[in-house]
């Protein structure tokens, strides 16, 4: 199968704390690949590594046949024009209205006329259902609307790859449904390749074609969305089913309670 992104033996540390210890992931072209894992497992970091915003200590990330971290600044920026990224907070420019936010990449990277930009922006906003909200400022939008505008902006340049960073976190069920539908529809209608990072397990499994689960710097599970539930690994089962205790313990590392209390009482 043709892969748009290949991550080979990736190692990455932040402040001497290892985030990835030899991770291998392939992102097949035209599919939705979900990357899941507990909070702090480095899912967002992985997207930043794919986008070239961070550099791995070992291993490589190959996107569209190019090693992302061997590119010059200009080559990296050219590659990024083929990537769209939806940030957790939306990342909308607070001083621009909805229309200008979506028009931003078009104005920066093309010499299209104002009429052409207007038509393109309205089409992108129509796709996410917010054509009528084009005059609103980001501060006037709900969380779900912000993400939809950011999505319209991310697809403004018709990228090959779109990356979603926690698109569902903190959203109500209706907004979740809207975002899930948009992710699936845009992927299929525009022929995109999608990477979605999330810990909303059940929701994401409804749209994902492939799933990778990361914990403690390593892959603990991978496979198709249908098969991942049948994996026997206790760590994976704890994550998928949301059990409060298991391989990831409920209690933070500490001495025993008795010892702690006796020490306090001076006995």
């Amino acid at each position: 199968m043709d892969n748009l992104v290949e991550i080979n033996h990736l190692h990455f540390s932040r402040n001497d704390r290892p985030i990835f210890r030899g991770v291998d992931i392939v992102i097949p072209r035209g599919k939705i690949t979900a990357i899941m894992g507990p909070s702090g497992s480095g899912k967002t970091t992985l997207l930043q590594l794919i986008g070239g915003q961070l550099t791995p200590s070992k291993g490589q990330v190959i996107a569209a046949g190019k090693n992302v971290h061997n590119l010059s600044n200009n080559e990296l920026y050219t590659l990024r024009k083929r990537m769209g990224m939806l940030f957790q907070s939306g990342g909308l420019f607070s001083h621009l209205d909805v229309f200008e936010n979506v028009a931003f990449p078009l104005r920066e990277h093309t010499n299209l006329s104002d009429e052409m930009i207007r038509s393109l922006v309205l089409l992108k906003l129509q796709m996410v259902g917010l054509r009528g909200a084009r005059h609103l400022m980001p501060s006037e939008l709900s969380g779900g609307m912000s993400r939809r505008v950011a999505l319209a902006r991310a697809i403004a340049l018709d990228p090959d790859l779109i990356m979603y960073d926690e698109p569902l976190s903190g959203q109500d069920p209706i907004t979740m449904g809207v975002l899930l539908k948009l992710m699936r529809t845009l992927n299929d209608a525009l022929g995109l390749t999608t990477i979605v990072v999330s810990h909303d397990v059940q929701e994401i499994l409804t749209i994902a074609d492939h799933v990778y689960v990361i914990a403690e710097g390593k892959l603990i599970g991978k496979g198709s969305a249908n098969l991942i539930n049948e994996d026997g690994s206790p760590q994976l089962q704890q994550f998928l089913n949301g059990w409060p205790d298991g391989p990831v313990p409920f209690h933070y590392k500490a001495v025993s309670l008795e010892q702690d209390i006796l020490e306090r009482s001076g006995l």
Partner: protein
Amino acid sequence: MIAQVTTLGRLGIKLLRDYGKAGILLFSAICYPPNIRKGLPLVFQQIYAEGVLSLLIIMVSGLFIGMVVALQGYHTLVKFGASQQLGPLVALSVVRELGPVVTALLFAGRAGSALTAEIGLMKATEQLSSMEMMAVDPIRRVISPRLWGGFISMPILTIIFNTVAIYGAYLVGVKWLGLDAGAFWSNTQSSVDFQEDILKGIYKSIVFGLVVTWIALYQGYHSMPTSAGISNATTRTVVYASLSILGLDFVLTAMMIGGW
């Protein structure tokens, strides 16, 4: 003992690393200026945000400082029968020292803190990251226009401050205390040298403009992307910028007077 030396070494390395990062930021902002077609409107926007919006505080402060210096100066000069020298006293004090320094201090408090908070907030809300991912360089799109905006605004603000302060002195000296208007202006004109006094004050303000804006942008760009991080960065901007202005003022004055 070893632990203390290690801590000292670590602090030293952090300091050098911070200076290095600040130097790289300045170099990138100056060497990759905004292009004419897209960047010039951004620079004008920043001149408005940093310069025009600081006008009120600059003009009001200039007026009161000019009035206070005139009042204090008059009561001293009159003891020596030299009250006609009030104009030169105020004009020279303002043009050489008070104008550039007070304008820069006010600019650091008004525009510098706003710049740091704005850039810090853009970082915390992932606006800078999303710009990078859209293949737009935040240094060129966000940092550089703000640096040029501050660099251009500061000398103009200083000229306005100087003008308003001298007018404030005129109001107190001539309109209130009854000095002769002709003597006030002619003494001022004959004592203030354009090259030696006015231009040297403007040179100082150009340096202050660059330094204050540089500090503000660096603190914002490298702030921790949290609310506490942004508030700390804003405080640091005002403290570092104020200390730099006062320290640099001494160095620049020594250079100008000493003829370096």
